[in-house]
């Protein structure tokens, strides 16, 4: 694998965030942490959008990842952060591999609706499962990393560092993937599925593979979110959550893996700011932003950068 400029930039970003962590004010650590969790999920949304597909049910994997992490703590008493993320990867990988077989044939609003239905099925199950706290969910706490105990006072920093590492690895992986032959197929599928088949590649298989990757990314984001917030509930798979991921993906654009990460940060900033100063209008701010982006910046915020570079 050859490293290009973006790959180096991703690694550099990760290193800087990691080193800067202890020096940053706690509000900024919190904001970055949530952004990285979200950003990882939106990396997956971006991959789907490169295929021309929008999921209105990615909360499903965000939630599954979080519950996989939570159950590891709750049921198996193994509150290890790495294991939690690992469990999320396995669970979301398996579930998406199965559901992907059904979804890979669907496009446009039918894909959106079926993915929505799947996520709402999980929602319906969770809200009625008393042993998992029903609508209230339950608390999650991670106490070790790879078997090493983490002192309570350094817990937050540890969770943050882990989010940095996983988001960086995810972005690095996705960037390499998109630059690969397999990854290039995504854009080709978006443009012309017929031609892809007549060049000898299976559109179904490619979409399935990309769906699984995007689901696993959402699962990682969910597990990180669970240990970050310390609490999980079925709202994670309720449709407005999935809608929020769509929102961030549109806001970000799909031009680069930096877009979802940056977009997630902008989103978090808008949210914290609006929530603090005007809690009853922050959704309105989001809605208006989304409309403006769709009308004036169809390539998302990322297109501001590329436009500048070209000009």
């Amino acid at each position: 694998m050859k490293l290009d400029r973006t790959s180096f930039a991703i690694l550099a970003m990760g290193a800087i965030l990691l080193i800067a962590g202890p020096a940053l004010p706690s509000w900024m650590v919190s904001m970055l942490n949530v952004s990285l969790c979200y950003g990882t999920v939106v990396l997956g949304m971006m991959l789907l959008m490169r295929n021309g597909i929008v999921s209105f049910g990615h909360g499903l994997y965000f939630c599954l990842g979080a519950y996989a992490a939570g159950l590891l703590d709750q049921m198996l008493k193994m509150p290890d952060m790495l294991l939690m993320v690992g469990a999320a990867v396995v669970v979301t990988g398996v579930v998406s591999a199965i559901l992907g077989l059904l979804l890979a044939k669907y496009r446009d609003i039918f894909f959106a609706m079926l993915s929505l239905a799947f996520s709402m099925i999980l929602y319906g199950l969770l809200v009625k499962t008393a042993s998992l706290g029903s609508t209230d969910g339950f608390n999650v706490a991670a106490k070790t990393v790879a078997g090493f105990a983490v002192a309570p006072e350094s817990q937050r920093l540890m969770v943050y560092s882990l989010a940095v590492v996983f988001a960086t690895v995810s972005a690095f992986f996705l960037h390499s993937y998109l630059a690969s032959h397999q990854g290039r197929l995504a854009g080709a599928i978006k443009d012309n599925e017929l031609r892809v088949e007549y060049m000898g590649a299976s559109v179904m298989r490619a979409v399935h593979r990309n769906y699984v990757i995007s689901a696993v990314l959402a699962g990682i984001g969910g597990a990180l979110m669970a240990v970050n917030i310390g609490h999980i509930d079925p709202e994670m798979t309720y449709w407005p959550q999935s809608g929020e991921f769509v929102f961030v993906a549109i806001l970000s654009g799909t031009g680069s893996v930096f877009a979802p990460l940056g977009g997630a940060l902008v989103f978090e900033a808008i949210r914290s700011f609006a929530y603090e100063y005007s809690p009853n209008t922050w959704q309105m701010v989001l809605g208006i932003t989304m409309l403006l982006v769709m009308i004036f910046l169809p390539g998302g915020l990322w297109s501001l950068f590329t436009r500048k570079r070209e000009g």
Partner: protein
Amino acid sequence: MAVILDARGLEKSFGAVTAASNINVAVEQDAVVGLIGSNGAGKTTFLNMVTGYLKPSAGTIHFEGRDITPLAPREITRLGICRSFQIPQLFNTMTVLDNLLVGVGIVAAAGSKWGARNSAYDDPVKAVDTMLDQFGLGSYRNRQAGLLPEGTRKLLDIAMAMVVRPRILLLDEPTSGVSADEKFVLMDMVMAAVKEHKVTVLFVEHDMDVVARYTDRVLAFYEGRIIADGAPATVLDDVEVRRFVIGSHAAPAGAASHA
């Protein structure tokens, strides 16, 4: 010469319209075969059946001795039959270079499974650049495919079929929409590439000058049947062909004649 493509007793109808009736064609390796006939005569139906897009209601198609009748387009492409389209099917938002790199990637990813032609591209970009030069597309390399002029789109469409290393290339009206003075330029480039890679060609064409100049065999279609099959000079002079295919409105040489 060995027979590379063998279609036997193909039948196909759409409702009351017979699109293929007892089609028997055996194509020899390295042949350049022209398919002529008025619109609706069954030429494109024939191409569609060979590439697996349509399934014949009766009959079989063998490629290099293998029955490909039940296969999907993708599988047939992988075996070595590729096609271009009457309306170019490009990846419109991607650059010309990327359009072809997609194909290179598909061949590379398939590796040894790519038919009998295990010929992975060592240096994809260089291979594509060579190809772009061959097709006279070099100056368009980094242009977006969706914004190309029509003649260039046609060329890219054909290059996209060639890039996945076919043994047989099917061209559906390669010169339609191409200006009269560009037609021969386009066909010269395509034929040069085809000869270099030893590809067998079947192409649907309305321009009889193009047919006469490039083919060594012509199949004339009329109402789903093949009414004449032979050397271009013979077929183009055939009385039935002149009446049903070329028609009284046959234009003088050099003019764009088809409707």
